[in-house]
């Protein structure tokens, strides 16, 4: 028997078990085979189960009658179906389900990585010692835990490939290759010589990760086409017998809009991540994706492309597997019946206060840290525990507790580190990756397709959050503070004579003691402005504010600067104006800076008038809300689309396009038109209006500071 130690890179199913890839301490990449049985369960009417039993008897499975736990129904008599062939489980289960659709199925669609992790106590990218015998893994011993704060870094070989332009717009001429500190480019002129060079590079470097731009949507499909055309075999997998696994593109509806996800190219034995097709990659990068893989058990390639929701679902499945709870294939819980008054009581979101309009000095913002997950853990809120007294720790709190603790520990380390420390970026990425898992967990309690969701548990969390916010408000008011604004999990408070961070420490301690949920000072604003509705200056708008902290840094929410449909020129000028105002140390000084802002605006308008503003900074981006024919009075976007339609472009509702405001028949000029707009034709007045509006937003609060806003 021999042994190896290293990091676990990848796991996938085979017809006779599983393949593991190990990056050893000796810098080898080992492909290991392992026997791996998979069990799933069926429950239901006994006569039906007997028929299913007969149906399965001739197949490559072991059958057993046993008792297993359903999270909601408790112990159930089930038929356990065990197969030594993980590669064909989908087919086996699919056939069975078609024959016997009335049975309840459990554990049938759990990814093999999760089963492996639950069984071996390993985790992806974790350290382990593997004992081999007869060329197969006999025993695997974990040497690390996913909750370690400082995991030993994996010496990954990363090869970066990127075309010299966006292939959707133009045909790339070169592929830029980067490995370690070396950078060079491969010409795409002759597919034959390109394939030969790339193949040689792959063999020489043997990368663990191929990081691409447009790899999913362009490079890998293109490589396969060229390989067929030239007859040169090209297999980018480390597992040589396998083809690249391509997944089709799809559009899906989420958060009120249609999102497009390009095709995906997955590799075996090494990873491929397309930076341009990875959902949250921009947010936390490779370090974040690896952190999520470590804690969720979903492979890095998958996790980089999936939503955090898939990650949290995987973690819940892991908790279930480890606690011998069966994972239902279909969600079974529906909303319980309620009377109207019960519904009125339950159907609320977080507490959103209307702020006191105007400019306020020395205001502290305090935030509950990870409020919703903290509530779920502290108050044991889980779909199976809601409404049950003295329930033992539920599935959701059990899943979240270590995640929440790890994020808090990372955050505390970050607070103590010097911002220039080289570890800061990595730790931030990892903390942010964990944050996203925590954020979506709450939504998944109420999501109609979530495996372990139940709307009542969702409602219990928001009800508790409103209660805690009111407790916090009462504590603050008891201590003499004015609560200016409250928004879901943060409060803005003020008191005469309180301006240093330490002045607010007793309040923070008191709130934490009362609520039992950690709370932290986000910062003390020198001044902060809460905005009024543009329609009626007497009506406050929640979560629209801007302010300057004592260190001069700005914070703004809900103003033009944060909106994606604001042109870059307006955004830039508004930010510059805020930077001028940030020099003010009090609401009084704020008013004194307004003339400087007005000078800035005049300068910006002059630049626009004399053509010093690049047209690219003036683009307006709007979405089409319907088909072009359906517009009675076409919006600017629709008019721009019509200009392009003349040239054969097609548009569907939901697509967005860019244009400039211009002095011509339609008042707009589509950016994609062949001929560029003559800058003298630019509708400068229209842009002045946009800028004036944005500037008005930030200077208006001066008015309400001087005459407090009267209702009548």
């Amino acid at each position: 028997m021999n042994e190896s130690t290293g990091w676990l890179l990848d796991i996938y199913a085979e017809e006779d078990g599983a393949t593991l890839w190990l990056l050893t301490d000796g810098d080898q990449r080992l492909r290991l085979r392992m026997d791996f049985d998979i069990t799933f369960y069926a429950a239901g009417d006994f006569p039906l189960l007997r028929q299913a039993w007969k149906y399965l008897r001739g197949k490559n499975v072991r059958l057993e009658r046993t008792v297993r736990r359903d999270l909601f129904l408790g112990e159930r008599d089930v038929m356990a179906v065990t197969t030594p062939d993980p590669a064909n489980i989908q087919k086996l289960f699919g056939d069975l389900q078609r024959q016997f659709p009335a049975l309840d199925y459990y554990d049938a669609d759990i990814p093999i990585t999760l089963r492996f992790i639950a069984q071996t106590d390993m985790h992806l990218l974790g350290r382990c010692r593997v004992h081999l015998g007869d060329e197969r893994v006999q025993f695997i011993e974990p040497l690390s835990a996913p909750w370690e704060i400082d995991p030993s870094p994996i010496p990954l070989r990363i090869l970066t490939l990127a075309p010299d332009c966006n292939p959707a717009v133009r045909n790339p001429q070169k592929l830029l290759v980067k490995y370690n500190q070396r950078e060079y480019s491969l010409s795409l002129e002759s597919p034959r010589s390109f394939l030969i060079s790339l193949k040689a590079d792959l063999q020489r470097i043997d990368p663990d990760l191929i990081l691409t731009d447009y790899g999913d949507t362009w490079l890998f499909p293109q490589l396969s086409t060229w390989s067929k055309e030239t007859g040169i075999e090209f297999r980018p997998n480390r597992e040589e017998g396998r083809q690249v696994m391509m997944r089709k593109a799809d559009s899906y509806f989420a958060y009120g809009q249609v999102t497009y996800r390009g095709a995906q190219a997955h590799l075996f034995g090494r990873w491929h991540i397309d930076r341009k097709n990875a959902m949250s990659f921009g947010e936390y990068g490779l370090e974040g994706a690896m952190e999520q893989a470590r804690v969720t058990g979903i492979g890095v390639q998958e996790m980089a492309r999936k939503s955090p929701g898939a990650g949290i679902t995987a973690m819940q499945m892991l908790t279930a597997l480890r606690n011998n709870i069966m994972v239902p294939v279909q969600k079974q819980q529906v909303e319980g019946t309620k009377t109207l008054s019960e519904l009125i009581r339950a159907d609320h979101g977080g507490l959103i206060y209307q702020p006191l309009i105007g400019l306020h000095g020395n205001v502290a913002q305090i935030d509950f840290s990870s409020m919703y997950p903290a509530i779920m853990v502290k108050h044991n809120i889980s779909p199976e525990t809601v409404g049950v007294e003295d329930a033992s720790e539920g599935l959701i709190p059990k899943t979240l507790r270590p995640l929440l603790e790890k994020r808090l520990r990372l955050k505390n380390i970050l607070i103590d580190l010097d911002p220039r420390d080289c570890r800061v970026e990595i730790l931030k990425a990892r903390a942010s990756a964990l944050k996203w898992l925590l954020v979506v967990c709450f939504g998944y309690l109420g999501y109609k397709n979530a495996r372990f969701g139940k709307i009542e548990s969702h409602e219990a969390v928001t009800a508790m959050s409103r209660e805690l916010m009111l407790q916090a408000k009462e504590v603050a008011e008891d201590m003499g503070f004015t609560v200016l604004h409250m928004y879901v999990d943060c409060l803005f408070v003020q008191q005469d004579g309180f301006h240093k961070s330490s002045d607010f420490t007793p309040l923070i301690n008191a709130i934490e003691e009362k609520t039992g949920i950690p709370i932290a000072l986000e910062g003390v604003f020198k001044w902060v402005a809460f905005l009024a509705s543009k329609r009626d200056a007497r009506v406050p708008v929640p979560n629209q504010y801007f302010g300057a902290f004592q260190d001069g840094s700005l914070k703004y929410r809900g103003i033009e600067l944060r909106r994606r449909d604001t042109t870059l020129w307006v955004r830039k000028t508004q930010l510059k104006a805020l930077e001028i105002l940030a020099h003010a140390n009090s609401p009084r000084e704020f008013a004194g800076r307004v003339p400087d802002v007005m000078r800035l605006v005049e300068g910006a308008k002059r630049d626009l008038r004399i053509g010093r503003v690049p047209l690219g900074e003036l683009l307006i981006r709007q979405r089409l809300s319907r088909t072009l024919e359906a517009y009675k009075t076409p919006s600017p976007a629709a008019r721009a689309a019509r200009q392009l339609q003349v040239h054969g472009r097609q548009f569907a509702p939901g697509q967005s396009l860019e244009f400039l405001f211009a002095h011509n028949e339609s008042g707009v000029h589509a950016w994609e038109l062949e001929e560029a707009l003559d800058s003298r034709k630019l509708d400068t007045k229209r842009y002045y209006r946009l800028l004036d509006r944005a500037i008005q937003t930030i200077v208006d609060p001066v008015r309400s500071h001087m005459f407090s806003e009267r209702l009548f």
Partner: protein
Amino acid sequence: MGRTLVTITQLLTETEANLSAFRRTLRRSDQYIFDGLFAAARRHIAAIGQAESLLPFETALLAMLLEQAKEITVLQQELDELKKRHE
């Protein structure tokens, strides 16, 4: 998202829309005061929601009264101060 009931914000907007004929018939100067009543209610959306009333507009009326009472208190204080200064 995913809510079954209308929110208080929606409810106030709808009620205001239902009263548009009433508002239109008022004099322009009264219209401004009328809008102020709804602005007063909107300052207390969170509290109206928390009241969990079957008829939330009743609570909205209370919010309007509250702002009026507040206005009266402020005016009274100002009056008292002015009186003191003249005595």
